[in-house]
């Protein structure tokens, strides 16, 4: 590496002492540091380039395990499966919090240290940069011929006035090229440009801290809720109407704006022409009627890539499926249960699974596990095991396995509506029992075993799964991200450089010398000096010395 000439430090960007551009200090051996000295030593170490680099690479390295193992936040089912498959190893991973890598203590410790180191670098650099912005360019070096991009003109006989004019022309030329210029002793112009480079650099790093702070502080205000709505039903934005909600620390149910959404129609579109993709979903549109208190109700639509922004929340269409409408009657023919039951899709052809729970009205508690096939494949084609071959309702079939016993709904504990705990139940029909399972098509009715009553499949409708989020950090994070990007471009691509033009008198003659100095990466420095030399020498009518 070429050694750089020392120069006035007051306008240089203040960098950690181990920055390659910083002057190399002689090793100072301190026999005793004392408490303050030791702290200062640690602080210097933490804010040095080498430590920052180490912590950066450590963050990259520490992020790896969380990508190899399913995460609780993004893939809770994956975590359950992983733990079931690797019980022993999972305990070790659990101990280190690998299933929650990105909120684990060790991961947090690394990035918090990195950001402390970053802040320790930003603050002095910002102070220094503010001062540097007010400082004029430093004195012209005595000898320019040792500096990068050195060029000179031929000697010319010249008077003092001509020299003053030549230096004046240099000043004007440099100013017009965007340099800050200072004239020394009437025989040289010292110029510096690209202060914006350091400004951009600082903005980039400050905005990164901004993102971290916005996410960290704003996180408590975020809440996300889920709601499944079959066509024709409504959702009111009140705490009790959510299927599930994960509130942030500072969530208050009173803050919910009581708007109401009614799903009037849901239109899925499936590919019909492309032979390679028959039955693939190509569009989902949910048509809703939205009413905000004090305003007229409006018709709105939600699609996968266009959420609805309403009442301080964002409403996303994240899932959809089929909901068979099932009616159960007791032996006397009285309806004890009738409603659409959202089934969870199991594959792309919408084979779906759902659970019906009838705690009251029949002689025993009855639970049913249903499998729904929108287009059941003929057994002659697909074999005995039923399966769906198209997500549209072309040949819909519902099969039910019936259980009786304790549904576990009386214990007061919350129970998953989408699964049936069969521990305290007895299967009375379906696979594994003597009684065959129930098979229904829309409009059909079947008898429940043991004279319990009847079950009817009225029709099949669609439902949507909506995610409702409130995230006040979004706008902050986006703003800081934009600043990160702008700061990055400015900090990387605007060259910070110094250029000197100097009149050198020897005897009765004078020639002009040109040189520059890069402050940071500047691959075009030589070209820039040459361009200025060309313009200036042409102005004075002098030739360049080859």
């Amino acid at each position, binding site marked *: 590496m070429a050694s750089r000439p020392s120069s006035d430090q007051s306008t240089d960007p203040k960098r950690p002492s181990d920055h390659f551009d910083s002057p190399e200090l002689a090793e100072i051996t301190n026999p005793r540091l004392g408490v303050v000295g030791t702290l200062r030593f640690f602080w210097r170490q933490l804010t040095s380039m080498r430590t920052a680099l180490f912590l950066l690479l450590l963050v990259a390295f520490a992020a790896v395990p969380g990508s190899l193992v399913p995460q609780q936040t993004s893939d809770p089912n994956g975590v359950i499966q992983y733990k079931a498959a690797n019980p022993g190893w999972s305990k070790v991973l659990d101990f280190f919090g690998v299933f929650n890598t990105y909120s684990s203590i060790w991961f947090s410790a690394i990035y918090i240290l990195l950001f402390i180191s970053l802040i320790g670098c930003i603050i002095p650099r910002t102070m220094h940069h503010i001062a540097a912005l007010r400082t004029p360019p430093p004195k012209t070096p005595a000898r320019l011929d040792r500096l990068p991009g050195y060029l000179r003109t031929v000697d010319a006989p010249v008077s003092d006035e001509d020299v003053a004019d030549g230096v004046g022309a240099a000043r004007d030329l440099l100013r017009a090229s965007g340099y800050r210029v200072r004239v020394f002793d009437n025989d040289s112009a010292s110029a510096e440009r690209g202060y914006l480079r350091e400004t951009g650099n600082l903005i980039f790093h400050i905005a990164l801290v901004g993102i971290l702070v916005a996410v960290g502080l704003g996180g408590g205000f975020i809440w996300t809720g889920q709601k499944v709505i079959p066509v024709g039903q409504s959702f009111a934005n009140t705490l009790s109407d959510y299927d599930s909600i994960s509130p942030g620390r500072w969530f208050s149910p009173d803050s919910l704006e009581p708007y109401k959404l009614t799903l009037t129609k849901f239109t899925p579109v499936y590919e019909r022409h492309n032979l390679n993709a028959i039955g693939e979903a190509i*569009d989902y549109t949910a048509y809703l009627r939205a009413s905000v208190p004090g305003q007229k109700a409006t018709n709105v639509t939600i699609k996968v890539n266009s959420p609805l922004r309403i009442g301080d929340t964002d409403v*996303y269409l994240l899932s959809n499926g089929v909901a068979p409408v099932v009616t159960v009657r007791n032996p006397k023919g009285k309806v004890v249960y009738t409603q659409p039951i959202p089934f969870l899709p199991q594959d792309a052809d919408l084979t779906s699974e759902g659970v019906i729970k009838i705690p009251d009205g029949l002689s025993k508690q009855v639970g049913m596990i249903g499998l729904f096939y929108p287009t059941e494949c003929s057994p002659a084609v697909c074999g005995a095991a039923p399966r769906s071959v198209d997500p549209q309702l072309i040949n819909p079939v519902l099969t039910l396995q019936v259980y009786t016993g304790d549904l576990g709904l009386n214990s007061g504990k919350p129970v998953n509506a989408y699964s049936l705990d069969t521990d305290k139940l007895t299967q009375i029909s379906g696979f594994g029992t003597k009684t065959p399972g129930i098979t229904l098509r829309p409009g059909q009715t079947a008898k429940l075993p043991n004279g319990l009553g009847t079950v009817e499949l009225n029709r099949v409708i669609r439902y949507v799964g909506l995610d409702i989020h409130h995230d006040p950090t979004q706008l902050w994070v986006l703003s800081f991200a934009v600043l990160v990007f702008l700061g990055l471009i400015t900090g990387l691509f605007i060259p910070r450089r110094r250029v000197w033009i100097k009149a050198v008198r020897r005897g009765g003659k004078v020639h002009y010398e040109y040189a520059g100095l890069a402050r940071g990466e500047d691959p075009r420095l030589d070209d820039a000096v040459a361009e200025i030399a060309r313009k200036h020498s042409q102005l004075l009518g002098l030739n360049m010395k080859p």
Partner: protein
Amino acid sequence: MIPVHAAVTQATLVNYSLVAIYSSMFIYALAFIFFTYDLAWRVSEARQLAAAPAVEVVAAKRAGQLTTKTALLDRPGPVPPGFEVAAATKVKRSLSARLGMVFTVMAWLLHVGGTVFRGLAAGRVPWANMFEFTLTATAIIIGVFLVIQFWQDLQFLGAYVTGFVLVFLGVATINFYVDVIPLPPALQSYWLVIHVFVASLGTGFYGLGAGLSVVQLIQARREARGLGPVRAVPTAEKLEALAYRLIVVGFVFWTFTLIAGSIWAEHAWGRYWGWDTKEVWTFIVWVIFAGYIHARATRGWRGSRSATLAIIGFSAVLFNFTIVNLYFHGLHSYSGL
């Protein structure tokens, strides 16, 4: 009912696309052979030069052979015949590099044509699954490589670039190939055009930067051992400066990819960041190259150490594209495989 004419047109376009891609692969293979031949010459020349005693070099220069550059000085026999052979050698070497470039340009035109036909067949941008993304990203790598030639001779990277692209086109056509199918709802967004295209631009710049870093390491090793540098290849310091300029551009694209991806993720999935596997690896790549840029500014970390970081960073890009796409389940499962 299937509109017959539409199906035929699409099948025809898909065939045009594949024929163009296969042809481009054949020509890339030719380019690769010529570039490799050229590299062999450069290296053998450097070895001969290093083996030649310095006195003889000086003597040869004094004898007025400054123009020959190459020095077959260990070759027995009088100088005049040596001069002739050396001159012939020079022509031969530049010929093979030049042929490599010509074939690369031809292959690239077919490559771009094949990619465009694929887009026309699908009626959308040709980067919605792994196969298409590979076509586009490799076309961008070659495109950047060709454009840079206007201000910087990078022919010594030709073997690396064409070899790399050839391997990926081969894997894409054999292992990643999928038929044209419509976009799933989550991909129907203008962000597909922006986010993925900028990501492939970033990949292209990173790839070339990493290639330069590899050559830089080779040069630095030769320089450290006192062997002559590979002839007609810039010095390690020059290579480092070049690699830095490319990687910095790649880093800007990558930063944009992260931000644009977050905005799209908020629209499609309801959150801007969720530590999905693909997100994590995109973040890891970003941090590694941020580390690279800092390493370039840290005393003791310039040179071979930062070059190694650039190579690790690009390896992470490739890991993110291949292993993460194929073996990890996440929201970015759009490989179509």
